[in-house]
């Protein structure tokens, strides 16, 4: 079964580097999301694996086949890579009916007519689009077009399925619905999914592993919860999670292998980690997830700046001197502005970043 390996893959458009020396192993049956802000190179990466874009340098292997190697001059056409591709705008052929759109790929595989008909019917039933068989794409809604596109892509049973922001053109409600259907589809079809998105919630919800990129460079490649709890640098910590992580400037002084004296929010604290702390601790950024900020009691004294209730949970911003601290409270609460609000920071998942490099140097607790 296919395992996708990217080795030193680089893509330049003239002088602009879109993807820089990317190394990645996608295991069979993974659901990988390529995540990052727009222009970070995630779509380019996907298109290179699919064969729609030619890398400038590097080597790509799908299963046992080298599909691209810049040194040996190998570049296998997308048609021979045995893949499916779902485009952001669906790319349904406007002059063909729903049936013809789905059948087209099977015709190319020279399936017998009877089998094509069976398969198309099966796909239309699976995606609940039977009643649109004779319609043209322009006569369908966005969500229906999306389903046709999925049916078309899945019909030839590709072993690897590539998706380029397939949900971004749908409205919020439909997007949530399709999201769970895609995840179900991954289980049902038993194939490898590679999925591009800029929506970190989508990436968290869908993926078995997230590949987070920024400015053409791979930042972190881990399962979603690892990315969330152990971000390797400030960019990852900032990009993943909503509301975003609190970043508080601090100064520090080494106390031993596992402890650092930290001066932050006007207090002297001790940061304790279970592992040895490496790196420069004099200038630090301390990262605290909003759910670790407990409101109501504690030794920090802040003032409520604004409260944003969303029903199930409430985001509260508390001003503490020059710093702003965000907290998430379960349930609906509504604090009045300028209310005095003591808070504490409770967790052993507090993250210490080196300020100069932005790298994570420790995970631990504050006391």
């Amino acid at each position, binding site marked *: 079964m296919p395992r996708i390996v990217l080795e030193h893959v680089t893509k330049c458009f003239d002088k602009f580097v879109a993807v820089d020396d990317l190394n990645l192993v996608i295991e069979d049956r993974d659901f990988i999301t390529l995540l990052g802000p727009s222009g970070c190179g995630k779509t380019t990466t996907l298109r290179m694996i699919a064969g729609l*874009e030619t890398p400038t340098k590097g080597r790509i292997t799908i299963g046992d086949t080298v599909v691209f190697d810049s040194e040996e001059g190998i570049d296998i056409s997308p*048609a021979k890579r045995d893949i499916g591709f779902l*485009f952001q705008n669906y790319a349904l052929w406007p002059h063909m009916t729903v049936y013809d759109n789905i059948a087209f790929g099977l015709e*190319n595989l020279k399936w017998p007519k009877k089998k094509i008909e069976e398969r198309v019917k099966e796909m239309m039933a699976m995606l609940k689009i039977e009643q649109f068989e004779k319609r043209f794409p322009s006569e369908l809604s966005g969500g229906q077009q999306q389903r046709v596109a999925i049916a078309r892509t899945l019909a030839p049973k590709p072993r690897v399925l590539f998706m*380029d922001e397939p949900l971004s053109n749908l409205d919020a409600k439909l997007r949530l619905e399709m999201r769970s259907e895609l995840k179900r589809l991954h289980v049902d079809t038993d194939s490898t999914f590679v999925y591009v998105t800029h929506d970190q919630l989508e990436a968290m919800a869908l993926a078995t592993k997230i590949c987070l990129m920024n400015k053409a460079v791979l930042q972190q490649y881990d399962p979603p919860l690892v990315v969330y709890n152990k971000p390797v640098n400030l960019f990852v910590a900032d990009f993943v999670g909503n509301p975003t992580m609190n970043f508080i400037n601090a100064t520090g002084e080494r106390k031993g292998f596992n402890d650092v004296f930290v001066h932050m929010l006007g207090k002297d604290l001790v940061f304790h980690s279970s592992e040895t702390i490496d790196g420069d601790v004099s200038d630090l950024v301390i990262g605290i997830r909003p759910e670790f900020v407990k409101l109501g009691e504690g030794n920090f004294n802040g003032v409520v700046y604004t409260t944003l209730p969303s029903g199930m949970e409430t985001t509260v911003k508390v001003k503490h001197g020059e710093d702003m601290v965000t907290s998430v409270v379960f349930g609906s609460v509504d604090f009045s502005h300028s209310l005095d609000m003591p808070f504490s920071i409770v967790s052993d998942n507090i993250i210490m970043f080196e300020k100069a490099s932005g790298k994570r140097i420790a995970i631990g607790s504050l006391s």
Partner: protein
Amino acid sequence: MARKKSTRVLNNVRSYISKPANVITILFFIILLTTVCLPLLTLVRDSVVVHSGEIRDIGKPVGSFTMYHWATLLFEKLYNYSIITFWRPLLNSVMMAIVSCIVAVGFGGTVAWFITRSDIPGKKFLSTIFVFPYIMPSWSIAMFWENFFKNSNIVACYNQVGMLESFTGLCVPEWMLYGFFPCAMCLGIHYAPFAYLLIGGILRNMDANLEEAATVLKASRFKIIRKITLPIVMPALISTVLLVFSSSISSYTVPSFLNKNGSFPTISTTMRSLFNTASMQGQGFVVAIILLVFSVVILKLNDKFTGKRKSFTTVSGKSGQVSLVKLGKGRIPFTAVIMIISVFFAIVPLVSFALESLLEVPGDYSTISLYYWTTSNTLEDRVFGSSQGILRNPTIWAALGRSLLLSVIVALISGTFGILIGYAAARKRGSRLARWVSNMAFFPYLIPAMSFGAVYLSVAYTNTFSFLRGSLLLLIIVGGIKFLPFASKSGANSMMQLSGEIEEAALIMGVPWWKRMLKVLFPIQKASFISGYLLPFISCMRELSLFVLLATPGSIITVVLQDFEVNGLTQISNGINFLIIMIVLLVQLITNKLTGASIDKGIGG
């Protein structure tokens, strides 16, 4: 009560007039009604009344009603008159138009595909030179064809030796030089850039994902073109075919240059000679009407094919990432063939015009001299005015000056009108009057150039407007209206792109209308507005068919050129053509460098 009502009406009128878009709409409704619609009525009238030269044949006084013109032209059996003067030329024109369509779309479409979809090298160079034949006057390719293929075996070209014969000794048979085949080929090559611009535009805007989706689903290259690309560009293709067809069928210049042996009369050359014969003018007007009906039918068909449901406008976020088809082993031969053909029809003609004007004995390259440019001898008595060398010839220089003046005025008129009409159409979107105005502004596009000339010829024959006959003013009006569609189209497109808020922001700050136009709207869409001036200028500078019925001998440069050409002074006609092309190219190049405007921006179909 009544007073109250009248003040309310007055106030309504006042507030209606206070909006510039309303004033412009009404103004142009009136202007276009008098310049486009009313002349059409006089044209129809002229086809059913007796003219002064026709009294003897018809036996009725001047101005009385008669169906003689229609009946004679279409149904006269004596000596096969109607077959010879109407039906056969019509058939010739249709055949010529069909073949030229195939050539233009096949050639232009292929090059468009290679430039937009493949990794062919030298794209920038190719796309620049490929539009040359369209920028050149329409007879240039015909003239070049003659320069290239004429040979000592053919009497009709005065046995002059052409390039092919002098380099290789080959003499082509007469059917390759004059008649159906060369006319169709030359028109096809002339309109190939037009097809290239239209089809290329669609290919460029077409969502590349549509083709990629088929690639991923294992469709072969050929199958993708056949099943995906072609059906999607089909509406544009049909539209191109129809436009080329309607332009070719009424083309006058090419058949008049390549019919020196008289074997290939077309509907437009026939029309010209009918108008030149005093006793047959009425029949000329009939032909003009029939040609006009042809064009209108074709354009209606075009609307039908490019209607909303049939046209596939595809909007995509990621079409910029077009993956180009790799030509692989075919790269070098494909490139070579396309380059050679393009250079042959874009650059070699220029060289040939310059060269032909320098040869004292055509075809003999040892006789290169400036004789035909500098001599003060009279070379030929039959031409109108002076026939001295080009540089010393007062007739040529005066005509060139008048042509330049005419083109500048025409460009100013149609460019400015176009912007204003575009502005009104964009601001008053949905209003019926505004739609009428923009439809009327587009109407002259549908009318074949010669028919349009005929329309105004009939106006100039009325007593009221007889002062227009043969005047420069008449040419200015005709040119200004005929080239209005280009300008109003580019004006409307660029205005539609601007959201109303941009102007409203200035309106709220109390900026007067003219200042909003000059300081806000114009600078933002500078390039496309200037294209709206450039295209009429270029078209007017090289126009012959439109003016040929109206202009007096020696009045404008293209008429002078034709005079020298038909009288066998090909050195001078080549030299003049070279001058015209250089002026047009230079103006286009300078404008492009200074403002970024170019003619392909103005061509929208």
